[in-house]
């Protein structure tokens, strides 16, 4: 596997999302927030511009110990000693890229169906992208594959990592994770945010919560998705009290509402948490 390392939060550049801020400051903020895989994607830059950006990001990611790949351009990747490339379905075929890059460098492939995923795995891809899960401005016009494909990939793609991509935000990450993803990729949600670092932390927190829930429960089957304070969240909790406990709220002075009605605190333990429930936990406001 050479330069490949496992990762959880994959971030791709998108300079059009942050006018007025430099590529370096935005990507460094993402790295500070915990992004642990970086891709340079710029379909509009000249090769020279791309090379300059790649050099800068190579240096930056190296200081964070994070793998760095270049979209679509093995020559640029080699020139800056990037860890590899990421290829779309219409880019250079995987075998051709491999012959240029050698066995150690990373080659990732975008896939939009389980057939493409199987093919990429068979040909020796180091990881695959699975998406777009939701409609996205980064890939306009491409139909979203929905979380159904994420679930398929989770069931079938076992020998290499897959990362869910496309329109993922902290608010909808729970749904994607509940479908079986363990790694997320974000573009606009991170680089388009005024605070990329915070968004990365929130995404990682979602991933962490989900993996804890899976460890606590009996696997993804035991997870139900509920909406907690406006965010989709996979949980193994069977009751409102268990959900509050998982969120560290069971002992706090908190008002709980489920599906539009306040649930008395004494009934939290006996209130079942159905899949799809909408729950609001609100800290009691005490000033007067």
């Amino acid at each position, binding site marked *: 596997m050479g330069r490949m390392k496992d990762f959880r939060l994959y971030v791709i550049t998108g300079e059009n999302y942050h006018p007025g801020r430099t590529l370096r400051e935005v990507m460094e903020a993402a790295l500070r927030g915990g992004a642990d895989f970086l891709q340079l994607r710029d379909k509009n830059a000249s090769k020279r511009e791309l090379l300059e950006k790649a050099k800068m990001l190579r240096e930056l990611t190296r200081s964070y110990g994070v793998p760095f790949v270049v979209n679509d351009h093995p020559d640029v990747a080699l020139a800056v000693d990037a860890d590899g490339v990421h290829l779309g379905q219409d880019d250079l075929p995987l075998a051709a890229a491999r012959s240029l890059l050698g066995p150690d460098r990373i080659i990732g492939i975008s896939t939009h169906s389980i057939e493409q995923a199987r093919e990429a795995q068979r040909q020796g891809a180091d990881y695959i992208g699975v998406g777009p899960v939701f409609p996205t401005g980064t890939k306009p016009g491409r139909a979203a594959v929905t979380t159904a494909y994420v679930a398929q990939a989770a069931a079938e793609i076992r020998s290499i990592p897959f990362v869910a991509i496309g329109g993922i935000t902290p608010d909808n990450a729970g749904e994607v994770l509940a479908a079986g993803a363990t790694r997320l990729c974000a573009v606009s949600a991170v680089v388009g945010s005024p605070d990329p670092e915070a968004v990365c932390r929130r995404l990682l927190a979602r991933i962490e919560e989900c993996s804890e829930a899976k460890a606590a429960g009996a696997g993804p089957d035991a997870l139900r998705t509920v909406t907690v304070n406006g965010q989709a969240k996979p949980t193994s909790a069977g009751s409102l009290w268990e959900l509050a406990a998982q969120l560290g709220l069971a002992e706090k*002075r908190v008002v709980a509402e489920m599906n*539009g009605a306040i649930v008395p*605190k004494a009934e939290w333990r006996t209130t079942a948490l159905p899949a799809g429930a909408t729950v609001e936990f609100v800290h009691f*406001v*005490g000033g007067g």
Partner: protein
Amino acid sequence: MLDDVSREERYSRQIRFAPIGAEGQRRLGVGAVLIAGTGALGASLAQHMVRAGVGTVRLVDRDYVEPSNLQRQALFDEEDARAALPKAVAAAGKLTRINGGIRIEAHVADIGIHNVDGLLEGIDLVLDGTDNAETRLTLSDACYDRGIPLVYGGVAGSEGMTAALVPGATACLRCLIGGDNAETDGDRTCDAVGVISPAVEMIAALQAAEALKWLSGRRSLMRRSWIGMDVWSFSVRESRLPEPRAGCPVCGAAGAAAERGSPAGKQPGSAAIVGAGASAGEGAGWRAVADGSLRMGMESGPGDGERSGAGMDAGETKHGMEREAGASAVLLCGRDTVQVTLAVPVPLAEARSRLAGSDGELLADNAYLLKWSVPGGERIVLFSDGRALVQGTADEERAIRLCQEYLQERREPAWAE
């Protein structure tokens, strides 16, 4: 009082509002409301009730006016802050000038189990303007016990919450937020996160509307929901309130809120306004209606005329018994202030003379309280009901020692060894 203006004229716009009408106005005039806490929410609530012509408006507050209150506590001005007047007294002073035709009572007291029964005597509805969950739970328990609705309100930052809790119709506050008094770390208070005035007015307006419905007899129109709002980001969330919980000893056992406000008995407008005309010192034409031990302290204060009969005697007894245990202290959450309750209340006159021979520097001295600073930097505010607020410390033991040093028999302070 506007003697030459008829009630019909004074309240004409409210009477013209069909859901209230003449009958609703008459009921308001014989209604009695307790404003629990006369800070930001309380001052606004009190003004709504007084202007609307609610027959009796009883104010109770444990605190005094400080400059940091003026940004949002609508009834107070710079003179009140300079004079360090108790909030209930300062509020009552303004409110009588707004409406001289109703009864307004001011109680300088900390609401607790020792006095809550007395404070609720004759009350039809309680408007919550307190600043902590513990007092609210005490009020909720007592209100459900007596079948009196409690309209909860809370604000912090730019957000607020409110709900009308009605015995027999909705669950009590203890059921909604949990009863364990130790669970305070999640509370959002003004002292922790600040507060802006529009958030206060937003919540007070919603509380006042429910109070007007209840007191004017339009009880079926009460909103059966918990509302959370943010006036800065603008969001509103409305959740249905659960019914009384069968297993709860407070709301499960409570009968329906009593149907009161019958025209017999009370005479709107005829009751003397408590304290009006009393020659209290410090330029305040007001004196507190005393509860329990406060009355004791008031007897040595200036301007203490004949006391009004607010029926606090039961509270006095409980209060006295509780005090035999000795001085107790409680940290006021998020305020860097400890409230010390002395075993034996020290009359203000006695405290004043003790202070004269000490190193304490007198900062305020009026009919209701003494405020002085000590060399360690703390400020002590002694109320005539035996409570002292020690500001500038979160150390309960130090607060008690300071009070003992300045208010009790001379002894070497334990910490100065």
